[in-house]
């Protein structure tokens, strides 16, 4: 079954159909129609899988995708066109260009936290670049997975794009096939499995992983600034799939003296945004499944960690709901500070000086995103040059995901390769260097038998020494001593 599907795809690709601009455009339009027509179904599926509020669903998934599709449709011709390269001296009557070409049949393995967004965002890139593609949505968000398998496919050319549902076993089977690119979103652990499997066919991979994304909060003096900061932190933690996002804020770093003010404001705004009973207000997503629920529960199980909880902490196992929770200075060696949290628990770590955050961040694996709330430009500069992360966002969070002009991707443990906007197109393309020469100019000194004179000619022409070239041609330049002492 799988073999036959893959043969279909390979055939479609080999036929050249998917390379056509018209095919790419029609598929992108199909994707957009799906998002428009099925908006309610998508929102329902997201509600079912994750209890995701429809505004969140639109903001983080549907809307962002439509934006990407609009950009891709608008830019497709430009992206597909060859780029001319500048040429050096010897290249008379030569032209050079970089021609983007599709890679072939690609596999996209998606994740459950943004089951539509993280499935279709890379698919847009794969299709725009002219590949045949298989999308494997996560089995942990079953409603979205089956919506994609049943409904999305009616909008697309099923000989060129397929959705294959399944769990670990099916993924394993898929990974054994030959792909021309594998795009994976998920954990570093599975990322290693994917990359190891890709070795067999020398398949390039893009790994979109996660990590503990810190938010550094400077001691802001203006109350407006700190209130905006707090609102943005809350949305980037509790308001983004309940913190189950690879770019969600994992923990906050703040100066000791500023901590109580920050905590007090966060409490206040949690209440303003989610009401007295956040569970009832339905504005916070639930935890995806029992497994992750108990994982999060266990993060709080440690006695010292429990003591550090200063807000929230209540858990409703039946409804898989965890209240927005704040921890102040939990032990750094505890799991909550060594693992990616991926849930609505927010540790706040206090430091003597905000500059100490640089060392704190550098002691840990490189995160996918770093957030810094500060007006201090020296601190901004130092953060950029002295720490390493997939991206840095100043005075906001999550928003970088929506910026098409910025590449989205990790570094170190947070993954490699990047996408979004034109970068998605590039990720799914091979950039072929093409040089065209004419038969009219041919330098005799390129060919053996090698003589002193030829070597000199090449030395001067490779050194861009046009005057020297002329002199040698006229027999006016003497060979250098290296040439004479060599093995001629």
């Amino acid at each position: 079954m799988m073999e036959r599907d893959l043969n279909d795809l390979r055939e479609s690709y080999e036929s050249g159909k998917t390379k056509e601009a018209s095919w790419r455009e029609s598929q992108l339009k199909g994707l957009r129609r799906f998002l428009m027509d099925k908006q309610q179904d998508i929102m329902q599926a997201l509600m079912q899988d994750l209890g995701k509020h429809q505004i969140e669903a639109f903001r983080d998934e549907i809307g962002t995708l439509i934006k990407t599709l609009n950009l891709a449709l608008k830019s497709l011709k430009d992206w597909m066109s060859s780029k001319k390269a500048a040429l050096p001296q010897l290249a008379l009557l030569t032209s050079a260009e970089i021609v983007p070409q599709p890679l072939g049949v690609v596999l996209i393995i998606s994740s459950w936290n943004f089951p539509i967004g993280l499935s279709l965002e890379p698919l847009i890139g794969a299709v725009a670049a002219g590949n045949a593609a298989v999308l494997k949505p996560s089995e942990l968000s079953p409603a979205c997975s089956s919506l994609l398998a049943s409904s999305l496919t009616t909008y697309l050319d099923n000989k060129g794009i397929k959705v294959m549902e399944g769990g670990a076993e099916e993924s394993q089977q898929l990974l054994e096939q030959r792909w021309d690119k594998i795009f994976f979103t998920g954990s570093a652990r599975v990322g290693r499995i994917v990359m190891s499997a890709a070795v067999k066919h020398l398949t390039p991979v893009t790994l979109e992983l996660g990590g503990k994304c810190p938010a550094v909060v400077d001691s802001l003096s203006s109350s407006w600034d700190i209130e905006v900061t707090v609102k943005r932190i809350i949305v980037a933690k509790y308001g983004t799939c309940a913190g189950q996002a690879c770019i969600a804020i994992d923990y906050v770093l703040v100066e000791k003296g500023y901590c109580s003010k920050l905590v007090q404001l966060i409490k206040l705004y949690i209440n303003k945004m989610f009401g007295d009973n956040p569970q009832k207000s339905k504005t916070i997503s639930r935890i995806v499944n029992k497994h992750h629920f108990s994982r999060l529960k266990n993060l709080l199980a440690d006695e010292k960690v429990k003591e550090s909880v200063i807000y929230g902490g209540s858990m409703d196992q039946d409804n898989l709901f965890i209240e927005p929770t704040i921890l102040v200075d939990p032990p750094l060696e505890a799991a909550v500070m060594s693992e990616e949290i991926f849930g609505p628990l927010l540790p706040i770590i206090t430091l003597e000086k905000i500059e100490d955050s640089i060392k704190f961040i550098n002691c840990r694996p490189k995160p996918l995103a770093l957030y810094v709330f500060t007006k201090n430009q020296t601190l901004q500069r130092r953060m950029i040059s002295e720490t390493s992360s997939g991206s840095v966002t100043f005075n906001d969070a999550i928003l970088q995901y929506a910026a098409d002009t910025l590449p989205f991707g990790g570094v170190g443990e947070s993954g490699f390769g990047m996408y979004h906007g034109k970068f998605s197109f590039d990720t799914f393309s091979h950039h072929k260097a093409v040089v065209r020469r004419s038969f009219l100019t041919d330098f005799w000194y390129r060919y053996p038998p090698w003589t002193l004179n030829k070597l000199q000619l090449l030395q001067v022409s490779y050194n861009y020494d046009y005057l020297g070239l002329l002199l040698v041609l006229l027999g006016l330049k003497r060979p250098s001593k290296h040439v004479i002492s060599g093995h001629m």
Partner: protein
Amino acid sequence: MQLLYFSDVSTKLFLSASSCSTMKSLCHGPFIAASAPVGRRAFGGHLTTKSFHKQLHFRSRCVVFSSFSCSATLSVVPELEEKLVFDGEEANLLVRELRKNFDSGRTKSYEWRVSQLEAINKMLEEKEKEITEALYEDLAKPQFEAFIAEISQAKSSCDEALKELKDWMKPEKVNTSITTFPSSAEIVPEPLGVVLVISTWNFPFLLSMDPVIGAISAGNAVVLKPSEIAPATSSLLVNLIQQYLDSSAIRVVEGAVPETTALLEQKWDKILYTGSARVGRIVMAAAAKHLTPVILELGGKCPAVVESDVNLQVTARRIIAGKWACNSGQACISIDYIITRKEFAPKLISALKEELEQFFGKDPMESKDMSRIVSPNQFARLVKLLDEDKVSDKVVLGGQRDEKKLKIAPTIILDVPEDALVMQEEIFGPILPIITVDNIENCYSIIKSKPKPLAAYLFTNNEQLKKDYVDKISSGGMLINDAIIHVATRGLPFGGVEESGMGCYHGKFSFDSFSHRKSVLYRSFDADSSIRYPPYTPEKEKLLKALISGNILQIILALFGWS
């Protein structure tokens, strides 16, 4: 030799490194590892990586040969000496030291990068003779080839980096959309950290220095592992790099399989490997353990399609330049085989014959203008390709060989069957099969039946054919009406696709390959709109939709609650 051998054998070598047979295996093992042609055999990467563990806690004093002699023409007699083996622990110490120095930030500064690049330039200028001599010793590479294909390329790469570095290092400002308004954004290149460059023996100097230049330009600490199959160049690189460059951040580790294995166990921030697909897989499997991104520069059978409408003499010369005058065909981008029209083949062959004689004389075996075969093992492999029953009676030119001198004459074989070994593996030597077709369009199915090559060549004046060829053939790079020289073309990426590798380098692409492009988004605290925050209301939803769609009119309508 099995693929798994690579790591397994190395463990064994460690344990029995004092026996005489070891010398042989050391020469044999790395040869297979570093220079075997493209293999398409499947293997389980996990098994290979598992065996890496074996060496982790193993360290002992044992006898090794300080210089390996893999070539019959070399006069170097391997001398026995007591030497501390470079094992996993040693490698770990090395990486830790370099990481400490990288973390200190010294390699990140523009000044440091420039000082190192300038030192390389100085080295190229002052040591041209030594480099040329080492290349002669390893490959009998003519001085001319050594200069044009290696030294001058390294120099040009260095010059370009020096000239452009400031520009490359500058953060790239990008526009931001209304969705994130008001904001500004830039992409900041930052070094990856400590990187490993594993080089190869056919262009042992250039393929070592070019990636190192890229790694330095991008501000990384770097370890270079040159190929043990080109021992003279390898040991020269140790000396030169120590002498000219900052050894707190740039190091060379010499060695073969055990040393490479020890290096691959470590956590690197990037690995650039040049060599065979077989070892490429081993490198990638080792990298997967640490989630290290890799650049694999592999090879493949690079085709040259020759249509009958060409300028015959120029075409023949360029084919020769792309095959025999290019390290005797021992280059990953050299022409592997030719496809041409049946009726045109005799003309092409006679033109090649004529030009070959012009270039290399009546007796090419005596010519000093052609490199020799690198090692007896490679020589034996090439002879085996030639002596296969289906092949030996197809030789139309050349065929002479001299085992002592490790030389094989420029050899053309006409219309060998597809299943002959010479058409199945990368030739990597001075044998040129010519396949004839009735119709030039048949070339597509022949080329496509093989893994994607690193380069594809086409000789024609037919514009439609050129266009189709570019469209239909997927290869790392492509060059119309010439061979090889596209890799020297500035502004173009050099790298393969599929079996010919992944990732690319050269010039700015080297810089990018050894950099992480960090997105930086600046927002201000002003102009904060409440629509992003709960509690969510229908009005907010409307405005959000308008904002994301980027339609100004809709935004205004939504803002005023009119839509």
